[in-house]
């Protein structure tokens, strides 16, 4: 009898201590957007077959042999506006050598606003504002902005959550070369 109650007390105590230890080791400030479990990185970049805002057909495959940054954005999204100059700088830096390009995919937006956005803020790369097909789900986009770096073989090598910086993109390109 005595031994049995001791056993129960020990079991209860151990479970309670384990529970407390679990909470102690868990991250107390978890942000839903901070944990990303997307499984796109490492795979062949999902297809984006669409027509860009200037009426030209667009295929991710056409960019084989070059780096491609697939950028998901919206005109109503403040961090997207903030990151835009970085994208312009990145695109300009690689315009001459032609070894890297950007494609922007609009999210919940209208073509008119998107065209106006680029007219105001610059950027002369392909922009897709097609509201019929949804590429954001193929790319497992959670929040805006998000960007995916596709290497010359057509594999997604990195996902940027939030606003990107030119230096970060260059670093990831160097790392995955």
């Amino acid at each position, binding site marked *: 009898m005595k031994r049995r109650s001791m056993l129960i007390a020990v079991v209860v105590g151990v479970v309670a201590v384990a529970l407390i230890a679990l909470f102690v080791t*868990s991250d107390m400030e978890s942000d839903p957007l901070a944990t990303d479990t997307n499984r796109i990185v490492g795979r062949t970049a999902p297809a984006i077959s669409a027509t860009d805002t200037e009426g030209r057909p667009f295929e991710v495959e056409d960019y084989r042999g070059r780096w491609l940054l697939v950028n998901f954005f919206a005109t109503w999204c403040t961090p997207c506006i903030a990151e835009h100059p970085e994208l312009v700088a990145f695109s300009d830096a690689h315009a001459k050598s032609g070894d890297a390009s950007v494609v922007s995919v609009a999210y919940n937006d209208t073509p008119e606003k998107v065209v106006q956005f680029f007219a105001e803020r610059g950027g002369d790369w392909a922009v897709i504002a097609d509201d019929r097909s949804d590429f954001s789900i193929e790319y497992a986009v959670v929040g805006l902005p998000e960007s995916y770096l596709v290497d010359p073989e057509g594999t997604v090598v990195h996902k940027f959550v939030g606003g990107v910086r030119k230096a970060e993109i260059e670093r990831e390109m160097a790392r995955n070369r």
Partner: protein
Amino acid sequence: MSVLLGNAAISLGLAACVVGIGALLSGLRSGKEKLLLWARPMSTLALVAALGAVGVMQVALLTNDTSVKYVAEEGSKTTPFPFDVATMWSALEGSILLWGVLLTAFTVAVAAKFKSRLTDPLVGWAMVVMLTVTGFFFVLMLAVAPVFRTFDAAPGFDGPGPNPLLQNHILVAFHPPMLYLGYVGFTVPFAFAIAALVTGRLGEGWLAETRRWTLFAWGFLTVGIVLGAWWSYEVSGWGGYWAWDPVENASFLPWLTGTAFIHSVMVQERRGMLRVWNLTLVVATFSLTILGTFLARSGVLQSVHAFSSGSIGPTLLGFFAVIVVGCVVLIGWRGDRLRSPGAIDSPLSREGAFLANNLLFAAFAFVILLGTVFPLIVEAINGDQMSVGAPFFDRMSVPIGLVMLFLMAVAPVLPWRSATTELLSKRLWWPAWASVAVLGFAVAVGARGVSSLLGFWLAGFASGSVARQLTLAARRQGWRGLVGRANGGMIVHLGVLVIAVALVASQSYTKQGEFTMSPGETVRVGGHEFTYVSSYVREKANRREIRSRIRIDGDDVFEPSMNQYLATGQMIPRPSVKVSLTTDLYLNLTRAASAEDPAIRIRIVVEPLIVWLWIGGSVMAVGTVLSAYPGRRHRNPLDPVSSPVAIGPDRDPDPESESVPA
């Protein structure tokens, strides 16, 4: 000024607790009874201090005194009454203040109730525990989550106001205080349990002392949870009222262990058994209220209801650890005095049913706790990210719920000690036929699905048992047949059954759809017609409402709206519900009309029997009050322990019929 006053009040409260604890401890040590009498003035002082702090906070909120950081961050000039009052519990710091003031009120109430027995060491130790917990909350308010901090507001500054979800519905004024009354109320049985362990007076005394306190705490928790579900339903926008969110689960856990305790305590009172188990349940209930607050406020789990989080997590976790470890040690230390003397004769008896009930409730609580923290466990084991959500909890609670319903049907008719199948067959005869009638009715009106039908059938069965018990009691005792623990308890059961039926129906037979509609367009959902008439804008002090007029079945017009809160610019839909006893028609805008585009996007949910959830909750509350008062003035001394089986051939060994006055 407000900050200074507020902090002075909190410091005074803390000082009162510390002095009170000191006086009581030295009184208990030295046996000087005079010192034990300090419990009352000190707890009163703590209450006055806490009320003072609340007063300062309320004045600051009502006058929008932005020199107080809390008011600057959570309040706004434009927040209308009573939401400005409720702002006090719309963020972490203010909720702790609410918790603190309720706790001091309970402490004073205990001191007042036991005023003639303050010199009794049992009461003395209970007061020590109460004051310690109170003191802990004062420390939180002062240092860990300081509620009164200064803020240097620029002229013309106006705060953002509470989270729009917290000013969208009047229930925000009632749900948190009720829930907290429940949480806080469980401190009283906990304090007496600890006192019993420390003094070694582990007889049934402490249980009797706290029976009513426990019952009221449980009642408040019940009402708090039901109001929370109602509020979710009114503001969530998808017709749901319970999402198995971590914070919801955290409030449900102490309710489950508390319910188990309320039942198993009767076994201890009658038979002197299950002492360790009951202590464990009391301690578990109290520590789960603390754990729940930790889960809600630390940000360790993501919740839709965690409107704010702060640095309070580690402190609450530490407090939880102290409670759990302390209680395990105390129970282990007193193990020798906790040996239960009796034995339970038969599984087929009232006490057997209570044991089964406890097993179910404990299992349910375990499942919910496991499911809630499981993603953390997996992450700790192999770093994987996973989720455990509604589908898991739904699937687990169906079998548990069905067995609970079955137990609710059989247990009330079981006598203490042991029953024969013959007795059961006699007593369950009419309840069982009633259940067949209920099942037949359900099938006739079109209810389908095995588990839903089993739910209706067992709910009918259990209602039959309730009806039988109440009819017998009322026939024997008149109106007194509705009061007292057993009879009031049956009314609580009735409330539970009403909720169970409403749950099954609304979970199984909801119809819904989401539509883009232009003015004049009509859609059909679940046999009802919804016509979009027009949209218009209504300006309020703190928000702009874009309302859409929806005509239902060519008759009444309802106006769901999209509310834009001016302070933050956030758009929050405000659903509109056509309520009836059979079906709720729930309308929620997911995209409002605009000047350019009068089309709206609307979610329409047709849910049966929703209103019975709230009615059932009210019945439970009424039943709780009724069961808190003694049913009979004089007890028949033969009642407590009824004889094992029938004595004569014609005699129904029903304890109820035995007590018919000669």
